């Protein structure tokens, strides 16, 4: 061991390394969708309570990210994409990440209970458990359906946001869940198509590795088709409206078209243009989710201005 790595892992990580443990990019999605869930709910919270609720949901999501990095440090070390994370890079020890994740989980759930309500807090605790234990520890390394099940963890935040305001669950919050839940598999499988050697080297049973790339392409198209009804149904509930429906119709047509384009491509074609269509589909999927939730926000704005369509 060189003397440089002897310094590392001695508890002298910078503040930024602990921020990295929270997976800030995933957190931005959690913040945005939880915020939309909270804002479109029919009950209005005091702005400071709303702010605190979103903050603690985000911290809870971050805590589950830290627990995920603690458990997955061994496979993160083998993948190019994740090699620079704080634990594999030696800047934070596994024990530090575990303690940080557990402590932050406890604080975020307790504070969400005090700020909003205990149903939302229990929901957040369940989400952390689902991501850290059910997905990361039990399923990620065992089944090629890992992405499908793991997607549920990412789909809970808007439901928690809604629960902060209303104290319960409704058809609107369930459809927001379904939108993210059905969107996650095509999003990550597109990523797996152009990050291919990474997952196989780490031994994670991604669908591309276990069932082949042609099957993965078919799965992507199937999910874009199954996703569309949920996305459109959300527009017919109390949080939807003509603006949302217009956006949803256009985005879903584009998503299905993109999925169909991936199915028609062979691996040789994809390798020839360095997975251009796959990368484009991945970027489109990010815009797809963002714009759906942005349209919900727009509808909430119209509703509070008195332009409720239904």
């Amino acid at each position, binding site marked *: 061991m060189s003397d440089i790595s002897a310094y590392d892992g001695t508890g*002298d990580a*910078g503040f930024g390394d602990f921020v990295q443990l929270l997976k800030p990019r995933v957190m931005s999605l959690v913040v945005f969708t939880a915020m939309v869930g909270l804002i479109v709910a029919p009950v209005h919270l005091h702005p400071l*309570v709303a702010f605190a609720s979103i903050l603690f949901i985000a911290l809870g999501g971050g805590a589950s990210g830290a627990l995920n990095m603690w458990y997955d440090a061994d496979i993160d070390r083998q993948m190019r994409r994740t090699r620079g994370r704080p634990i594999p890079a030696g800047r934070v020890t596994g024990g530090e990440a575990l303690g940080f994740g557990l402590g932050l989980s406890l604080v975020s759930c307790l504070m969400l209970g005090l*700020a909003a*309500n205990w149903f939302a807090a229990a929901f957040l605790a369940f989400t952390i458990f689902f991501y850290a234990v059910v997905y990361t520890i039990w399923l990620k390394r065992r089944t090629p359906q890992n992405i499908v099940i793991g997607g549920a963890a990412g789909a809970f935040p808007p439901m928690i946001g809604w629960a902060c305001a*209303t104290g319960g669950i409704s058809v609107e919050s369930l459809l927001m869940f379904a939108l993210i839940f059905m969107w996650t598999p095509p999003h990550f499988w597109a990523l797996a198509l152009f990050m291919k050697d990474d997952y196989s080297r780490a031994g994670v049973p991604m669908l591309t590795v276990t069932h082949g790339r042609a099957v993965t392409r078919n799965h992507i198209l199937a999910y874009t088709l199954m996703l569309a009804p949920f996305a459109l149904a959300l527009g017919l509930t109390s949080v939807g409206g003509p603006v949302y429906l217009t956006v949803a119709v256009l985005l879903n047509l584009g998503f299905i078209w993109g999925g169909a384009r991936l199915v028609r491509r062979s691996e040789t074609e994809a390798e020839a243009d360095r997975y251009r269509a796959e990368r484009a589909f991945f970027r489109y999927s990010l815009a797809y989710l963002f714009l759906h939730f942005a349209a919900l926000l727009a509808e909430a704005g119209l509703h509070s201005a008195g332009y409720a369509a239904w």
Partner: protein
Amino acid sequence: MVGAIRPDHELHRRRWSRNLGLGLSLLAFVVLVFGLTIVKVSRQDAHGNPPAATQPAGATP
């Protein structure tokens, strides 16, 4: 060798950034809890219960 005992190693910078970040996070937490307390206390009803808006009828706890 006066320079040798000055704590300007890269490690000290990381330690400083961590301490500063933790300090600011704790400060922000205190301010937030104080603000939440003001909001909760000033909005409760005559019996000291939270306003009905946060716990609507039909809520499933």
